[in-house]
C-alpha cells in the first residue's frame, strides 16, 4: 500500500502525478524533452538509457514501463532491451550508445564518477555535447523518478502485458499528451502556457 493516500487504480508514477498536478506538469515536460522530443539520439536509444538506469536503481515500475516503451520504438525487440540490462557491452547497439551507457551508469552512482576519459571516449565515437549533456541528465532524472516512485510506495503491478500495452501507447503519444488520461485538465501542458496557470492543488 502506498505511504500516502494516492488516487486508486493508477499504478507507479501516475498515482503520484495525479496526487500533485502542480509538480506533475514540470515532471512530464522534462521527460517529454529528454525522451520523446526531436533529437539526434533516437527515441529508442534514449528510452534504453532510461531503462538501464531504472534497472540499476532496481525500480520495477520504471524499468518495466520504459523497457516496454523502448521495445515499442525498436520494432518490438524485447530481447534487445533485456540484453542491454544484462550486459550492454555485448548488445546489438551502436558503440556510441555503449559509451553513453557507461556515462549514465556512472551518473547513477554519483555524478563525480564521470571522468574526462569517459567523455572523450563517447566523443571519439561521434557523441555530440548535447548528446552527452542529455545522457547525464536522463541518468540524473531517472535517479529522481525512480526514488519518487519507490519512495512513495506506489503500486507496481507485476503484469507484463499491462506494461507492453501502455508502452505502445506512450511510444505513440509521448508523456504530456498521455498525461491527459490521468491528470485534471488544468494541469495539462498547453503551447505557450505561462507559469501563472499552475498553482498548488
Amino acid at each position: 500500500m502506498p505511504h500516502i493516500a494516492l488516487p486508486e487504480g493508477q499504478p507507479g508514477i501516475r498515482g503520484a502525478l495525479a496526487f500533485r498536478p502542480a509538480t506533475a506538469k514540470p515532471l512530464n515536460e522534462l521527460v517529454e524533452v529528454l525522451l520523446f522530443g526531436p533529437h539526434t539520439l533516437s527515441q529508442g536509444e534514449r528510452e534504453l538509457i532510461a531503462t538501464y538506469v531504472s534497472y540499476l536503481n532496481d525500480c520495477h515500475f520504471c524499468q518495466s514501463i520504459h523497457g516496454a516503451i523502448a521495445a515499442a520504438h525498436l520494432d518490438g525487440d524485447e530481447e534487445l532491451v533485456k540484453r542491454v540490462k544484462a550486459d550492454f557491452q555485448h548488445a546489438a547497439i551502436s558503440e556510441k550508445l555503449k559509451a553513453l551507457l557507461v556515462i549514465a551508469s556512472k551518473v547513477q552512482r554519483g555524478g563525480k564518477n564521470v571522468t574526462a576519459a569517459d567523455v572523450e571516449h563517447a566523443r571519439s565515437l561521434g557523441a555530440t555535447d548535447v548528446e552527452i549533456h542529455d545522457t547525464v541528465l536522463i541518468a540524473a532524472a531517472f535517479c529522481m523518478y525512480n526514488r519518487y516512485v519507490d519512495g512513495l510506495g506506489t503500486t507496481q503491478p507485476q503484469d507484463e502485458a499491462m506494461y507492453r500495452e501502455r508502452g505502445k501507447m506512450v511510444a505513440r503519444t509521448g508523456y504530456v499528451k498521455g498525461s491527459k488520461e490521468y491528470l485534471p485538465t488544468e494541469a495539462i501542458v498547453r503551447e505557450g502556457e505561462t507559469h501563472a496557470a499552475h498553482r498548488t492543488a
Partner: protein
Amino acid sequence: MPHIALPEGLPGISAGFAFRPETAKPMRDLAHTLLHEANSLTPGERELIATYVSSRNDCYFCQTSHGAAAACHLGGDDVVRRVKTDFESAPVSAKLKALLAIAGKVQRDGKLVTAEDVKRARNEGASDVEIHDTVLIAAAFSMYNRYVDGLDTWQPRDTDMYAQMGKHLAEHGYLKSSRE
C-alpha cells in the same frame, strides 16, 4: 574544466541551464514549486531538506547555494550547519526532523522509506502533501546534484557569491537566473 562546452562564467547548474534551455524550464519550474511557492512547510524548511540531501550527495554547489537560501529565510546559517551535521539535535521542529529522516532514506534509495518513518512524520503533524513533497524534494535533488557534478560544472569557492545567490533565490525563487 566542464566535460562539455558550457557557457563560461556561469557557476554550477546555471551553466547547464544556459546550455540547454529546453530542459532548464521544467527543472526551474519544479524547483520553484517545490521550494518557493506558498505551502504549509515554510520555504526555509524546504530549503533545509534540499540542503541536507545535497550535503549527503556531497554536491558542493547545491549544498552551498541552497544552504545560503535556507540561511536567508531562517535568519542565520547556524541551523543550516547543524542540520547538515546532526539534524536530530538541530533546533528545528519534531515534524521537520521526521521529514528529514524520510529525505535521508530517499537520498539512498526510495525503497528504504518504511511505514514507520511515515507514521512518525504523521504523528508529528505532517500532511500527505508534506510527505509527498519531502520525497519529491529528496528525489529531485538526487537529480540536480548528479546533473551539476556529472557535467563537472564550475563550482567556485566564493562565500560572497553564494550569499548573494541565496538572497536572490530566497527573494525571487527559481524561475529566472539572477543574471537575466
